[in-house]
């Protein structure tokens, strides 16, 4: 009897021993391949300095509606996309919703093509019900970062873990992120150039959210890796009053032509810096007036850092400062509380000093 027990245990142990290890190192390839069928590579023309003219999109309807991030290149002309099978189409921007910093695109079929598209797509309404992400969830991020794929080549796949769920506190240049809902923070470098609009999926291949645009963290000045979950919420100002929607609801309504755009006030005029250094430069007499310090306001950040009249500013955070205008331009990137490094020439010496920028004094 005893012997029998032992024998029956052996296969059981073997079996048990194999299952979990197979699970833990289960490859992601099949899930990745099927998710890839529902993603598109977006291309635009031009783009300006620091902003890419390409991105990624998520197919959200069989007719070819696409969810992506509201990237600047979408304003341009010659918008085209590559489907996962390699077909190339033009697309147009159906709408951009600033509260979600997201856009819905539509594939433009040539007139001769009367057959409607029937594309594989992510069912956003279904996904938001089923797929949940919380800290510790293993996910895959898929995007066309760095434009490494074209035509029928596969998106880049990265694995990541959701490290936390929370609000974003980030900016790009002088622009604050317009979106204020919860995001999924990820532990992998997912938010690369061109990755915005890519998909974050779980191990079953269900859509969890959309990779956001590149932003730097306000506090640490490092690039943030995050995605907007389908369940994230934004408050939309309508003529009838404020109303809260999830990203999934936005997608559904937008695809059905039922979305009413928010009455968001235009971005405030950002021509003037919002920070105070306390430096008064020499009067601008020529187009490129060299940034010589004329006066330093006592008690100001510049005063505390040790700047003196007649110092010549050479660099601001590593960027060359050729004129007083450039200094003013560069300063627009910063917010009160940011620390900047200034390099100056005093006599024959180069000196570096750090300024902690203050809010503009109320006048």
């Amino acid at each position: 009897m005893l012997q029998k027990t032992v024998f029956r245990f052996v296969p059981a142990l073997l079996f048990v021993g194999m299952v979990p290890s197979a699970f833990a190192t289960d490859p992601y390839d099949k899930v990745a391949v099927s998710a890839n069928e529902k993603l598109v590579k977006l291309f635009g023309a031009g783009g300006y300095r620091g902003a890419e003219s390409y991105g990624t999109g998520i197919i959200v309807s069989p007719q070819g509606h696409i969810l992506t991030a509201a990237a600047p290149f979408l304003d341009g002309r010659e918008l085209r996309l590559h489907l996962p099978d390699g077909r190339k189409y033009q697309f147009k921007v159906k709408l951009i919703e600033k509260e979600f910093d997201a856009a819905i695109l539509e594939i433009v079929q040539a007139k001769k093509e009367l057959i409607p598209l029937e594309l594989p797509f992510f069912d956003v309404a279904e996904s938001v019900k089923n797929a949940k992400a919380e800290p510790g969830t293993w996910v895959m991020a898929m995007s066309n970062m760095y434009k490494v794929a074209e035509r029928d080549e596969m998106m880049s796949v990265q694995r990541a873990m959701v490290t936390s769920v929370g609000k974003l506190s980030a900016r790009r240049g002088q622009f604050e992120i317009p979106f204020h809902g919860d995001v999924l923070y990820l532990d992998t470098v997912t938010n690369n150039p061109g990755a915005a609009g890519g998909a974050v999926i779980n191990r079953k291949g269900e859509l969890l959210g959309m990779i956001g645009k590149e932003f730097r963290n306000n506090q640490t000045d490092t690039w943030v890796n995050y995605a907007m979950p389908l369940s994230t919420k934004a408050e939309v100002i309508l003529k009838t009053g404020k109303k809260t929607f999830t990203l999934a609801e936005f997608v559904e309504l937008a695809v059905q032509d039922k979305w009413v755009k928010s009455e968001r006030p235009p971005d405030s005029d950002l021509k003037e810096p919002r920070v105070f250094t306390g430096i008064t430069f020499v009067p601008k007499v020529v187009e490129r007036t060299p940034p010589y310090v004329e006066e330093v306001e006592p008690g100001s950040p510049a005063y505390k850092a040790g700047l003196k009249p007649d110092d010549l500013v050479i660099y601001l955070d590593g960027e060359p400062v050729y004129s007083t205008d450039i200094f003013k331009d560069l300063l627009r990137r910063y917010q009160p509380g940011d620390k900047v490094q200034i390099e100056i020439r005093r006599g024959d010496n180069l000196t570096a000093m750090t300024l902690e920028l203050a809010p503009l004094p109320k006048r």
Partner: protein
Amino acid sequence: MRKHLLICSAMMLGLPVFAADPVKDGELDRVKLVQKVRPAVASIFMKDFSGDPRGRIAGGGSGVIIDAEGYCLTNYHVVAAEAMTGVRPTFAVGLPNGTLYDAVTVGCDRTGDVALIKLFPKTPGEKFPFNELGDSGTLQAGHWTMIMGNAQLLSTDFTPSVSFGLVSGTGRYSDFGFAEHTDAIQYDTTANQGNSGGPIFNMKGQVIGLVYGGAPGKRGAFNTGIGYGLPINTAKNFLMHMRAGIFCDHATLGATVNTQISEDSDLARLMVNQVLEDSDAFRRGLSEGDELLSFAGRDIRNLNQYKSALGIYPKEWRLPLTYKRVNDKKETLVRLMSYSPPVMKNPAGPGGQPAAPKTKGFGEGMKYFEEKKGFANYYYNRLARDRVLETQKRLADYSNLVGDWVWTGTYDREGRGGDFLAKIEEIKDPTDPKSTKTQTSLQLGLTDYKLEPLKDGLTVADLTEPPYTGGLMMALYQYRRLLTLGAKGAEGEKCSHAGMEPVYIMPLDGLKPKKLEDIRLMCEVIRFEHASVESKWYFYRSDLNPQLKGAAPFPEGTLIAGEVYVDRQSDPCELYFADFKDVGGKLLPHRMEARNGDKRYAIFNLKVHQMK
């Protein structure tokens, strides 16, 4: 009894009864895998002698040992001399057993950014630990990978760092200037400076790639979530070349192409723009306006795919190309041309800058380092060449048979045929009885052909006799020259090992094979030049042909084919030998096929060999 039932039902349901933690099990698997592969992961260090005569560590990289003799793969940019020109001769290489070994550069492939170095044992007969090479062709985005190496040169005790991640993409193309990453593996696994040349493992512990580096972008090369690796299958294509000390070259088709959107679909097509007239592709009939469909068994529909399909092969390889002209689909074998970008052909650099100063070598490796143009280390070329020729000599020793050679038998040329007689002989000059001249003659039925291969002033028409052979008589003369004299038969050391190349053995019935890949044999190549005629000779080796699963069609090291170029602008005369039988202690071929271009000239059934 109840207990048993419980266990059985649990098994049927497939539930883990003893709830082993899957995460812990996965971790244990990885720990075991790391322990298994780690001993053969190498930390490579360079030494600088400029300040200190004993030499200081000046940078380094990673590598992986691939056999018990201590051959180790790494990146070219790890072994490159200053300014990415030649190679550093020697290195110090640390293994996780704590020992620092001397090593020498053996071969390299600059365009593919891969190099082969060899470690020297501390005691004679010491065997090195090594890792198995996997098949990078089966990799898919989403597979797990592990990278090991000398990250940030942290491995001062020679224990490599480990990182773990996913394959993010395959078949990627990216141009890095000095190197072109074709068919690259893209991964999210962390790799840093110092990881260069280190192995990328799959979860079976096989090497499936080598780390190239990150993607330089606006955020710098660090922490970008994207890294590129060389697929190990590319390294395998160049491995025999590198073992033979060659400074390898990549290939081009000899045609420029562009993508075009066709009228009837939104899919891109790859159209031929222009074909170089001295390319094999041109001679095979490729011309402007043809649409490329596939190359070497891979579909090519866009430029990335085209570059990735081509960029994994050495120059001169012969590979199948499928193209479409109007509505005709055609398949042909194309010999690839040399790639070398112009900037690299001039090591002095643009603007006549002086070449980089020679890097001083050190240690045991200097005994095994020989410089020669076209080679990374000529010592290993001679070694490989002599090994191939020695093996051939063991199968059939011709070294005493420098007299007249006669073959007789029958020949078959497109159904017609008859008796043939081929003769290579020394004829006494009637005007000067002391001197002799070499003459090759061929009787095909009633037609006689004669050639004095060493006579001055021969035209291409003379050399390519009989017509439509590309120079059969010259080919037979060169064949005898190589077999009787070996490397000494070539003037000025112009007999070298030329790595590995495919040979296609056409079916005897003359019908087109279903797939050209099916009749392909990988061979070691000896390049031979005599009397200003270049030739290449192909020797069968079973370990280069794992697809045959041990069924060897020829004895190991048999000379099975040759290509003789009487003129570099025209198709060579190709000889294929078969039906080997033992004749008086020599393994001699009893059938020979002569081909030219993509056509068979004739099959010769050799009945009598007379060699003096």
